[in-house]
């Protein structure tokens, strides 16, 4: 295959343009921005999508009443999902597992990696609470078989089990496992698996838009001077320092 | 005594087609395992010398117009032992390859100049000059044209004093298995002639062996 001539010409033109940077004044820029039409419904959908994916049930409910935007999932399922996420974040992994199985018994049966991580988190919580004997038994009964069933877990398994070898767990090489952030990691994994099983996209669209904005500005920086958004939370236009 | 071919054996041109969908005849004398021996004359202005040459066919893939084998040159001045090279061949079947080489520093003029040295090429010359012979159907032509390019030395180093930078224009006769060729290399003396005959290795007749790759 080869590039047809029209595309080659276009690329050549773009290259020519890139040679010199264009300067755009704030007035011109704001005018261009105003010319772009965005529909309110689209913005509402974005907000709703964010609230639903992140699990802000009450906010989503209120927003739906006030704006009339329909969420693309049943808000009731969000409640279940949020309860599960919260359980993990509080270290109640067994409770979370029961809730997941009530919600959809296939999830853990078809996600060996997730199941392993939940069991791993259970072990971590036992160690954190100083229940070492229980932890040892749990590791043998519940965690070791996962390594036998699936070789790709062996490395992580070894790391986790290493926690048992240290008296002062907060200062050992694998102490990162005890971070609260590890709970969040596991919680996100569960959240994503549930969303997937409900055919919902697991990442909200809103952050992707912001990433796209940053990327587009970076691309444009090479070719023009224009008022940029440097602070995403305020979204103020700032003149470039030439 | 060879039998005279009573009818003309000019290849047919498929009218109206832009590329001949022909493949060379599956000629048993050019199949794997077949051996040939003869000479390559390396005449230059000073002297007329000839090396004894043995060739054996090792691989043959007609669908892709591919051939390969080894070439052994004996009584080569600079070498103590016979020099063996491995070569790969392009069969001019007008499907995979045409008479135009298109590489190895050979221009179309060079190509025609060499092919013309084979008598069996004359009926094809006019069409070949136009488009390399793309529209010719050589499937029933009793000669097979090839280019043989040596790829590496098998048993000596590259410092043996010989070069394999060029390639051979080759004409094989299906009737009796004889091979004629000319070596082309801008940096060597031109038109070194290769003349080989099918050997029967002391037999009274022809013997054929084969392998089949899975």
């Amino acid at each position, binding site marked *: *295959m080869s590039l047809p001539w029209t595309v080659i010409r276009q690329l050549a033109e773009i290259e020519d343009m890139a040679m010199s940077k264009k300067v755009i004044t704030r007035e011109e820029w704001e005018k261009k921005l105003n010319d772009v039409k965005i529909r309110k419904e689209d913005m509402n959908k974005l907000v709703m999508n964010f609230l639903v994916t992140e699990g802000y049930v009450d906010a989503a409910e209120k927003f739906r009443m006030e704006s009339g935007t329909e969420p693309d999932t049943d808000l009731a399922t969000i409640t279940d999902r949020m309860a599960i996420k919260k359980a993990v974040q509080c270290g109640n992994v067994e409770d979370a597992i*029961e809730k997941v*199985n009530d919600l959809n*018994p*296939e999830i*853990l*049966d*078809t*996600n060996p*990696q997730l*199941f392993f991580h939940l069991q791993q988190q259970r072990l971590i919580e036992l160690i954190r609470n100083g229940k070492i004997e*229980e932890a040892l*038994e*749990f590791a043998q*009964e*519940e965690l070791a*078989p996962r390594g*036998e*069933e*699936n*070789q*790709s877990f*062996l490395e992580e398994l070894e790391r986790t089990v290493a926690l048992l070898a240290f008296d002062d767990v907060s200062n050992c090489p694998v102490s990162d496992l005890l971070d609260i952030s590890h709970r969040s990691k596991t919680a996100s994994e569960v959240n994503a698996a549930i969303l*997937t*099983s409900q*055919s919902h*996209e697991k990442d909200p669209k809103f952050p992707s838009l912001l990433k796209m904005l940053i990327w587009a500005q970076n691309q444009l920086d090479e070719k023009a001077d224009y008022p940029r958004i440097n602070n995403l939370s305020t979204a103020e236009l700032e003149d470039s320092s030439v | *005594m*060879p*039998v005279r071919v009573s009818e003309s054996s000019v290849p047919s041109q498929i009218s109206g087609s832009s590329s001949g969908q022909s493949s060379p*005849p*599956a*000629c*048993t004398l050019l199949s794997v*395992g077949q051996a040939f021996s003869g000479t390559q004359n390396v005449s230059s202005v000073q002297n007329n010398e000839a090396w004894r040459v043995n060739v054996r066919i*090792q*691989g043959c*893939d007609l669908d892709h117009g*591919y051939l390969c084998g*080894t070439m052994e040159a004996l009584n080569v001045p600079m070498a103590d032992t016979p020099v063996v090279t491995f070569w*790969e061949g392009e069969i001019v079947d007008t499907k995979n390859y045409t008479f135009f080489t298109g590489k190895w520093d050979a221009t179309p003029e060079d190509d025609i100049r060499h092919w013309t040295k084979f008598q069996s090429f004359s009926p094809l010359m006019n069409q070949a000059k136009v488009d390399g012979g793309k529209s010719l159907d050589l499937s*029933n032509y*009793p000669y097979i044209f090839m280019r043989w390019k040596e790829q590496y030395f*098998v048993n000596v180093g590259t410092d043996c004093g010989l070069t394999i930078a060029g390639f051979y224009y080759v004409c094989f006769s*299906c*009737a009796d298995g004889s091979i004629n060729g000319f070596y082309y290399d801008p940096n060597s003396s031109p038109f070194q002639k290769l003349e080989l005959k099918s050997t029967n*290795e*002391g*037999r*009274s*007749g*022809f*013997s*054929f*062996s*084969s*392998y*089949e*790759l*899975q």
Partner: protein
Amino acid sequence: MPTSGPNNKPEDLIARLSSSDGEAKLKSLRELKNQIIGNRTKKLSYVKLGAVPAVVSILALAVESGDSSASSVIIQSAAIIGSFACGIDAGVRAVLDSGSFSILVRLISHSNNKVVDAGARSLKIIYQSKLAPKYDFFQKENMESLLSLLNSEIENVTGLGASIITHSCQTSAEQKILCEAGVLKKFQKLLQGSQNQRDASLESLATIIKNNPVVISEFVEADNRQYLRAVIELINDRYYRTRLLACMCLTAIWNTSPSCLQDVGLGTKLIMILLELLDDPGQVGDDAPFALASLIAEKEDMQKLAFEMDAVDKLCSQLRKTPLQAKRIQGIFLALAELCSKLEFCRSRLLYLQVLELVTDAFAHDSSEVRIAACICLKSVSRSVKSLSAGLFMNEMILVPLIKLLNDYSCSVQVAALGAISNIVVDFAARRPTFVQCGVVKQLVHLSTSMDSTVRVNAVWALRNLVFLADGGSKEGIFLELTTSTLLSLICDSESPVQEQALGFVRNLVDGCVESIDYVFTEDGVILHAIGRQLRRASKTEGMYVLSNVASGTELHKEAVLHQLLPSASSGAQSFLLKFLQSDDSRLRTAAVWSVVNLTFPCSPGAYARVVKLRNAGIYSQVKHMVNDSSLDVKLRARTALGQSMTFGDSST
């Protein structure tokens, strides 16, 4: 909370299931459910303890009772049964043996949607196993039930319908009847549904259209090609699994009716997406190489496209990641094998990337599927004559583990290893002694006497290739190891392919120096006679070449061949030589006419007498007809033969 304690042994839990107290029963059910979901090891041990029949009887009772309060018990038991059947053959068997199937089917028509959902889900899981009972699509009621399943609003119910089709649709008659029942339209609707519905539909669709040009044509033309468009769009879906399934659907169409897919760039897109999917660490990444292999199989243009998209490099870099699941390794080797099946530059690239070591490591893998795939990959790469000539595979690193596979307990592994060995033994530079040292000849000879005909034919194939261009010493060693009697039985084997390879072996054996011809004369020429007998029974090109090769020897050899070719006057049988000269197969004609050329080769003393005998047998009349044979080779040899017959002066042909 620990899982085993004084009261918490598995046996105790099972016992508590049959508690009469409703609450306790429900609690135990949930406990069991939560123990086994995701836990393969626990499932297996509970199955052994008889948990499945216990749960099934609870389910049955609850369904019979008809209580609305029994719903929770039904839902939990159904979920447990579904989980037992998930991914474990022993579990599926236990579930089916316990009679749960019909009970679950009844749940589909329950009034409580949650019960319907639970029942459908578990049935769907059962149907994902090949052990599930086959669905009879030809029964009218069955088809009606199936269609109503596909019409349901409940995701798991439509999922069940789809998985039934995926499981049970195997023959073209079944594909036809499903198509006629309007299933394609149902799938079209489901393709607009949720991700799970889309995935299930794509999988089912692939089974309905596979290898069936009629169904494919109907699918492609449906609704102004909109059905097809929908599937093509899905190759860009955000979910990897959907992309993979859509690619597999399109591959199924491509493999059967390529002309239906007019989109020129589609091939490139499919390859690109499948190569991207390789990076997925989960099951999609495991399945992607199989889909790629299927897409490029037998299609040189696709293999070339894939090569240009760096497929060889991408697949090889996947191999280097450890640890890898066996399934993925198998898939990658099979994909590489397809890539290298026809194109030399693919093989060169693979050799350049130095992955042969990974291939040979895989010969010792636990999984027989992986061992087979590695052999197939090596077989494909070793089609490179250039590499064979350079002896690239002629080293201990490859030979030792490969030859070990000839003793593998699995027949399929042996056959796969033989395939690779057949290629590797092709030796142009007298490296044969290396083989003899590795004991391969002994092994091959042993396997040539196997009860399994596939093993036999491949072993003899390897021997035939091994003896090609072999020097005298090697030939002698091989012949002695094989023995005349084994060779004879192979020439007269009950399977025709084995005979062919055995004759090919002899053909190579008698080539080379003239002394080699004597092999067929050992023990009073018993081998030569056997070959003559075989040729009288059936046309065999290889056998004819044996005779032709022998006829290029001494006077004695030529006379012996003539004796085989021309029947004695008393028998009255037609000479098979005449039959072969008239054959439709140009290769057989070629071999036959070469024998005439050799028998009457000039400068052999008895040539003239043989010419006369051949003429009397009507051979030359036939040869005259062949001077304008459609095959150039035959034509030229016929002319040579005629020419030779005329050099003796007597022109009364």
